[in-house]
C-alpha cells in the first residue's frame, strides 16, 4: 500500500513539473511570472529595509535606549582571593553583597524617589539622593554600596522605577583589629591601600575567581596571645602603645602586633595615628638590646673574649657628655658581666677597641642600616648617623645614635643566634626559603657565646622575670630614652621605650620574640621603676608561658647547662 502511495506521489509531482514546463513555452505566462517575481523581490527589499532601520535604531541612533548600561561585567566585579594564616584560618575574605544604583534617565519623580529612599535607615539623605539623580543625561549613579539584605528588600518593596541593584563584593576582615597593620585594608572597590592587601593587590584580584588563597606565615593563636598580653601590659603600665613580633628562626613571622590599632572593617571611625605600624615603620633608638650586636662584633672580630676585662669604675666623659651605667657596678667587668649587667661604659670601651669601620660593616651586614625586609609597603628606613666617628661608635654600642625598626633589630639578633646565618623575615609561606643562599654574618662559635650570655641575662641579669622553668629562655632587655626635640628630656620628664628581645631554646633557638612598651609608667608593683626588667620582661614571661605549650611538640630541649657562668661574679 505504501509503495502504491509513493508511486502516485512521485507521478503527480512529475506531472506537475511537466505541466509547468509546457506552460513555460507561452510568452504570456512568462510575463506574468516575471511581474510576480518582481513583486516578491520588492516585498523582500522592503522587509530588509525595515529590519535594517530597526538595527540602526537599536545600535546607533538610540544606543542606550531603555536598557541601562552595565558598568561591570560578571568578570569585572572585584572578588579578591582570601588571605589565610599558616593553619588555613581565614583572615580576610570577599563576601557577596548588593550595591544600589540608579538610572536617572528612567527615574520619573526625583523628589518622591529621594524622599522614599532616604526614609530607609542607613541610606543617604534626601538631598544627597536628589543631587545624584538631578542629571537626567546620566544613566548610572551609585546610591549606596554594599547594602544589607534587609535594606535591599526594603528598597525593592518600594518598587521605584530606575532604582536597581548590582552584585558586588565586600572585603571582610574576620578578626577585626587583630591583624590590621599586617593585612591592611582595601578601598570600596577592592583595591589594596596598605599592608599585604596593597602589596599583593594584583595577585589577589587575579586569583579571586580561581579559589587560590594567599597563605601567610602568621598564626592566629599566637597573634592573639601576643596581642592580649601586650594590650594588658599597656593598660597595666599606662603605656602609650606597644609592639610585638614573634619570629621563627627561619624568618617566618608568626605574630606581628602594633598597638594602638584600628578596625579595618570600620574605617569611618579610625584615628589616623593608630594606623602607624610600629614594627616596620617605627624607627627608634633601640637601647641596650643593641649590646647583643656589640658583643657579637667584639667576639667575632677577635678583639675580645668572654673573659676580657673592661674597666667600668668611672663614667666616660666626651666633651660635655658623660657615659654612665644604670645601677653600675663601679668595678672592672668581664665582657660577660658587662653584657649581663648591661654596662654602657664597658660597651663603649668594647666598641672603641674594634672601631667605627668594623661596627658599620657589621651593622650593614646585619641589615640595620636600610629598610626592613618584609612583604608590606609600610617600611621605615633606618636613621643612620651622617658622620660615623668614634663618639658615634661608642653611643651605637649601647643603642643610641642609630635608629632602626623593631623588625630590623629582631632580624639582626635572630641572625646572630641562628648560628650566625642571615635570616630573611617573611610574611608569606613559600615552597623554598632563602636557604640556598646562606649568608654567614658571625661565626658559629660567636653565636654560641652570645646565646650563653643571653641565657645568663635571663638567669642572673635584668631578664630574670622573663624566665620559664624547664625551658632555657635567652634574652636581653633594653630601656631607651625617647628623643624629644634635640635631647632626651630632664630626669623627671623622660619618656622611655622598654624592650625585651629573646627566644628559646638556648642551644638552638627556634622562636624569637621582641616586645616593646612605649612610655610605660612606674607602678607600686614595679617598686617605682619603669625600666624593661620590671615591665616588659614580665610581659615576655606571660607570652612565653602561653605560647610554649602550643609550639612545643616535645622537641624543644629542656634546661641545659650554662658554661659561661665562670666569667660572672654574681651578686648576692
Amino acid at each position, binding site marked *: 500500500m505504501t509503495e502504491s502511495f509513493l508511486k502516485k506521489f512521485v507521478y503527480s*509531482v*512529475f506531472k506537475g*513539473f511537466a505541466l509547468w*514546463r509546457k506552460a513555460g513555452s507561452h510568452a504570456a505566462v512568462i510575463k506574468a511570472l516575471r511581474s510576480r517575481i518582481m513583486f516578491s523581490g520588492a516585498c523582500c527589499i522592503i522587509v530588509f529595509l525595515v529590519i535594517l532601520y530597526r538595527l540602526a535604531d537599536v545600535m546607533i541612533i538610540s544606543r542606550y535606549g531603555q536598557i541601562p548600561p552595565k558598568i561591570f561585567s560578571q568578570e569585572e566585579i572585584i572578588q579578591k582571593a*582570601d588571605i589565610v594564616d599558616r593553619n588555613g*584560618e*581565614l583572615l580576610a*575574605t*570577599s*563576601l*557577596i553583597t548588593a550595591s544600589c544604583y540608579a538610572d536617572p534617565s528612567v527615574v520619573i519623580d526625583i523628589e518622591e524617589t529621594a524622599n522614599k529612599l532616604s526614609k530607609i535607615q542607613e541610606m543617604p539623605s534626601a538631598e544627597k539622593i536628589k543631587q545624584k539623580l538631578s542629571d537626567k543625561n546620566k544613566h548610572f549613579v551609585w546610591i549606596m554600596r554594599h547594602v544589607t539584605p534587609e535594606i535591599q528588600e526594603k528598597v525593592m518593596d518600594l518598587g521605584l522605577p530606575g532604582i536597581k541593584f548590582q552584585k558586588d563584593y565586600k572585603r*571582610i576582615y*574576620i*578578626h577585626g583589629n587583630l591583624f590590621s597593620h599586617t593585612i591592611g585594608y582595601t578601598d570600596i572597590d577592592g583595591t589594596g591601600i596598605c599592608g599585604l592587601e596593597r602589596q599583593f593587590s594584583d595577585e589577589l584580584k587575579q586569583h579571586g575567581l580561581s579559589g587560590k588563597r594567599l597563605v601567610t606565615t602568621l598564626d*592566629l*593563636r599566637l597573634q*592573639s*596571645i601576643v596581642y*592580649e598580653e601586650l594590650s594588658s601590659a599597656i593598660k597595666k603600665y599606662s603605656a602609650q602603645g606597644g609592639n610585638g613580633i614573634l619570629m621563627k628562626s627561619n624568618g617566618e613571622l608568626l605574630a606581628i602586633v602594633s598597638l594602638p590599632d584600628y578596625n579595618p572593617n570600620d574605617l569611618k571611625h579610625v584615628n589616623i595615628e593608630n594606623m602607624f605600624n610600629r614594627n616596620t615603620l617605627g624607627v627608634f633608638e633601640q637601647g641596650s638590646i643593641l649590646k647583643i650586636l656589640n658583643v657579637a662584633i667584639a667576639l667575632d672580630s677577635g678583639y675580645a673574649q668572654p673573659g676580657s676585662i673592661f674597666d667600668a669604675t668611672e663614667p666616660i666623659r666626651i666633651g660635655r657628655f658623660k657615659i654612665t651605667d644604670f645601677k653600675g657596678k663601679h668595678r672592672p667587668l668581664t665582657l660577660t658581666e658587662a653584657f649581663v649587667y648591661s654596662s654602657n661604659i664597658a660597651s663603649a670601651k668594647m666598641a672603641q677597641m674594634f672601631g667605627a669601620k668594623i661596627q658599620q660593616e657589621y651593622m650593614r651586614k646585619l641589615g640595620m642600616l636600610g629598610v626592613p625586609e618584609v612583604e608590606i609597603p609600610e617600611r621605615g628606613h633606618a636613621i643612620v648617623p651622617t658622620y660615623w666617628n668614634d663618639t658615634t661608635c661608642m653611643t651605637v654600642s649601647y643603642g643610641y645614635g642609630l635608629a632602626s625598626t623593631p623588625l630590623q633589630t629582631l632580624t639582626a639578633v635572630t641572625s646572630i643566634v641562628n648560628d650566625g646565618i642571615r635570616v630573611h623575615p617573611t610574611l608569606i609561606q613559600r615552597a623554598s626559603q632563602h636557604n640556598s643562599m646562606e649568608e654567614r654574618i658571625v661565626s658559629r662559635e660567636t653565636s654560641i657565646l652570645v646565646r650563653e650570655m643571653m641565657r645568663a641575662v635571663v638567669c642572673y641579669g635584668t631578664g630574670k622575670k622573663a624566665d*620559664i*622553668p*624547664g*625551658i632555657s629562655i635567652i634574652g636581653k632587655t633594653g630601656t631607651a630614652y625617647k628623643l624629644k626635640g634635640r635631647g632626651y628630656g630632664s630626669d623627671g620628664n623622660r619618656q622611655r621605650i622598654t624592650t625585651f628581645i629573646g627566644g628559646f631554646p638556648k642551644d638552638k633557638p627556634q622562636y624569637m620574640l621582641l616586645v616593646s612598651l612605649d612610655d610605660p609608667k612606674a607602678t607600686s608593683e614595679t617598686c617605682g621603676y619603669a625600666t624593661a626588667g620590671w615591665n616588659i620582661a614580665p610581659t615576655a614571661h606571660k607570652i612565653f*608561658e*602561653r605560647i*610554649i*605549650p602550643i609550639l*612545643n*611538640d*616535645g*622537641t*624543644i*630541649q*629542656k634546661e641545659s647547662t650554662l658554661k659561661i657562668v665562670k666569667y660572672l661574679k654574681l651578686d648576692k
Partner: protein
Amino acid sequence: MNPGIGARKARTELNKSIILSLLFLLCIGLCVSRMKYEVVFLKNKLKEINIQLDKCQDDIKIYNAEWSFLNDPKRLQRLASKYLPHLRPTENRQIINFETLIRSDFDKEISKNITSLVERDVPLQGANRYASEAFGAFLDKAIKKHEGAMESD
C-alpha cells in the same frame, strides 16, 4: 533511437535529482534547526548551573567566614572560661619529648624486674647495674628501630 525519448528521459532524471536534493536539504534543515534548539537549551541549562555554582561558592564563602568568626580565639576563650571553668591551659611541664617517653615506658618495665630481683634477695647494687645496662640496651634498640623506620621512609 528517437532523440525526443532520450531528452525526456534525461529531464525526468534531472527532476528526480532536484526533488531528492530538495528532500535532502529539507532533512538537513530540520536536523540543523533541531540541533540549534538543543544547543540553546543546553546553553541555558549551563548558564543556570553556573549561576547556581556561583551562588553555592558565595554561600560557602559566607559559611567559612562565619565559621572563622565563631572560632575567634577571644570568643573561644570567653566561652571556655564560662562553660569549662575547671579546665586550664596546658603547661609546658606537661609536654615531654620522645626520649623521655621511652624512659617512662622503660621505667615501668624495669621497675617490675627490679621488684622481682629485690623479692629474690638480689643485692640492690646489682639491681642498679642491671637497670643501667638494661636501659642502655633498651635505648639502643629504640634508636635502631627509629633509624630503621627513617631509612625505610
